[in-house]
């Protein structure tokens, strides 16, 4: 090689380095796996939608682009976008930015689990950051295929990115709310009773009636029914619980309202910023109406749930807000700052006194099928209470299976719907199965409990020996690590059979606790 050509090569290499240093930011798709690249595109589209409509959805809603996002996946990968102060486990992805926002990955706990889009999920705002914690939208996502047993609606395409973009908007609205309103009462944690269930359903019926009413006076009359039913419903609630419920209506309801109003405005003209090439699961909001109808469908299907309290706030709050918008335009101005609730605003705008609301109880009898609804709710609540009593009376050896290290909430399959009390789900006839990747739990027809999102509890009332030494369980495995960790293990009791790549078994006086440590074979 001549000196000249050597110099040329060095020069070329130097220019190449310089080019890399000052060149354009590397596009996300060149360095990130598909599921992450698509996520960033959905985030870009979220901002694009809000750029067009946020100010018209709620006065003053502007700073949504400054809100970081944290995405978590079942393979252990976490992606943080736009956070000014990431915690140490996040590493900057060099050269990858989303509209000027830096992207960080935490791959410390990554496992070789293939994630096949479409990927969906949910979450909420959390306060995170190393030096300066700030409100961040945190989403736990998983491939749609993992949740194939979940009910899908036929009106929208399952797994379409539109749904996830709307969810991003919902969570961003929560962050906006927190800038103008501080939680005063906390989340409602309330188990229903028969009276609550009855009048809660009437509330839902009245909201639908008001929403579908052709003229304003009929809508206002139905809203009076809603307020009368709410008063009757709340006889068993403490003042704090009443305030919590109203606050949940306010926070979740207006967040759902924000997406519904966005959709309504999109019908008047919307320009997508991404296309199929960016995200094969994005359809450009070509068919908006089904997304709007989903909320009314959710109101109809959810209102009759005897055991649900908190979950109704999404639609009940949304429809209160939608009706306020229809009947009293401009109501949003200063609303959060006023510390009013939606039902309080309705009272004020409708000009109703407490006596007026009390007097509204009598007409409900003629307008709604109270006797029929009462019989239905009485029966379900009675059965729930019997299930709780039964489960509390079971005495014997306690078995706990913890799935928490898998990072995946449980979705047990069962023949019957469980009875819910707080975070406890009671399966009087047992859990049929729980499947998480290579972890398989098969239950017998025996009362079993799922609790705290990640745990199964079963009490062995007979405690018959299943293995030498008189233990009520049998454990087989291919390999043991340390004192109590077993690989390729099968753990059998009279109540369930658990197969998992790696478990810990802690057998103590109080309980036998089995912790699933790995959900993938070979990990």
């Amino acid at each position, binding site marked *: 090689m001549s000196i000249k050509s050597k110099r040329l090569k060095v020069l070329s290499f130097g220019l190449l380095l310089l080019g890399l240093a000052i060149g354009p930011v590397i596009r996300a798709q060149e360095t990130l796996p598909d599921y992450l690249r698509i996520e960033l595109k959905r985030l870009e589209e979220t901002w694009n939608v809000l750029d067009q409509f946020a100010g018209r959805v709620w006065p003053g809603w502007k700073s949504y682009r400054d809100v970081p996002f944290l995405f978590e996946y079942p393979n252990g990968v976490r992606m943080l976008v736009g956070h000014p102060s990431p915690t140490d486990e996040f590493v900057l992805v060099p050269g990858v930015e989303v509209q000027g926002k830096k992207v960080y990955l935490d791959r410390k706990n990554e496992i070789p689990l293939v994630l096949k889009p479409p990927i969906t999920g949910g979450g909420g705002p*959390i306060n995170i950051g*190393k030096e300066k914690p700030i409100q961040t939208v945190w989403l736990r996502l998983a491939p749609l295929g993992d949740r194939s047993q979940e009910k899908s609606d036929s009106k929208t395409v399952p797994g379409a990115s539109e749904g996830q973009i709307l969810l991003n908007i919902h969570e961003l609205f929560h962050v906006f709310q927190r800038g103008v309103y501080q939680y005063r009462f906390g989340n409602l944690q309330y188990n229903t009773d028969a009276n609550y269930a009855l009048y809660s359903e009437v509330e839902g019926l009245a909201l639908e009636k008001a929403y579908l009413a052709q003229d304003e006076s009929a809508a206002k009359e139905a809203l009076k029914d809603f307020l009368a039913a709410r008063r009757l419903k709340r006889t068993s609630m403490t003042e704090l619980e009443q305030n919590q419920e109203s606050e949940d209506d306010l926070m979740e309801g207006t967040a759902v309202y924000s997406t519904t109003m966005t959709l309504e405005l999109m019908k008047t003209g919307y320009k997508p910023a991404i296309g199929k090439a960016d995200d094969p699961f994005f359809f450009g909001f070509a068919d908006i109406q089904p997304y709007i109808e989903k909320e009314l469908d959710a109101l109809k299907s959810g209102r009759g749930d005897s055991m649900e309290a908190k979950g109704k706030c999404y639609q009940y709050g949304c429809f209160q807000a939608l009706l306020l918008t229809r009947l009293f335009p401009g109501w949003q101005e200063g609303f959060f700052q006023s510390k009013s609730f939606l039902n309080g605003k309705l009272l004020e705008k409708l000009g109703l006194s407490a006596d007026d609301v009390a007097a509204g109880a009598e007409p409900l009898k003629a307008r709604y099928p109270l006797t029929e609804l009462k019989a239905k709710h009485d029966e379900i609540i009675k059965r729930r209470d019997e299930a709780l009593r039964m489960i509390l009376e079971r005495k014997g050896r*306690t078995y706990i299976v913890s799935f928490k290290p898998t990072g995946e909430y449980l979705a047990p399959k069962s023949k019957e719907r469980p009875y819910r009390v707080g975070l406890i789900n009671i399966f009087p006839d047992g859990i049929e199965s729980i499947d998480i990747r290579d972890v398989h739990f098969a239950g017998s027809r025996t009362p079993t409990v799922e*609790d705290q999102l990640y745990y199964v509890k079963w009490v062995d009332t007979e405690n018959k020996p299943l293995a030498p030494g008189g233990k009520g369980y049998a454990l087989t495995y291919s390999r043991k690590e340390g004192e109590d960790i077993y690989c390729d293990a099968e753990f059998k009791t009279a109540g369930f059979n658990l197969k998992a790549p790696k478990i810990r078994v802690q057998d103590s006086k109080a309980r036998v606790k089995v912790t699933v440590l790995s959900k993938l074979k070979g990990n």
Partner: protein
Amino acid sequence: MRRLALILILAVSFSVGLVLPSAADDHIAGSMKRTYMGRTFPPQTSEVWIADGKSSVRDGVVTIITRNDLGKKWILNQRTKKYLEESISPQPAPPSKTEKFRIQEYGWDYEPVYEWSAKETGEIAEINGLKCIKVLLAGEADYASETREIWISKDVPIDLKRYYSQFVEPGLEPAIRGVYRSVSALRNGLAVKTITTQERPIGNPFVWENVLTKAEKSEPPAGIYELPGDYTKAKNRDEWAGR
């Protein structure tokens, strides 16, 4: 309530008895760091004064003055200048049988009931110039677990017997009291460093690190065991907390 829980942890964290003459009161100070989701919060300091039959514990804005001679304790909130008065009962009151079960509230708040075990690891280290031994406590509940890595030293100039009987043991939950009674090091020393990891049923673990910064015999500030004159009695916890 969280603040009171922290004080309890503090009490247990600084547990350990050389019987020394009580020429002056015992003065113990420490600092606590909490880490959650990768963020370590700014450290909080705490201070304990102990004399025969009385103590004063300050943690952040909360101070608890215990007067065995009066059979009561005062819980002071520096921020609201309000205090709560409670009688000192040697055992926590058993739950009232007449208390009404309310289905509406059941199943939401999980309170772990730990089964505790202790292990004297045999490890020795010098921390803050003090020779320490390590004791590991592990608590296991149905849906939660907690570990406490405690480095304990006897080489501290305080009345360890008094410290344990007057300050540590009254703050121990019944479930862990047996462990303390069975492990001599826990009763006869002062925790120089404690790392507590709490794995809750849902969400990420909390980690607290308590470090002893001072243990001495000293003259206490005037009136440290008295109710300050500028505080008024709160009608309830909400008023005390300024809610």
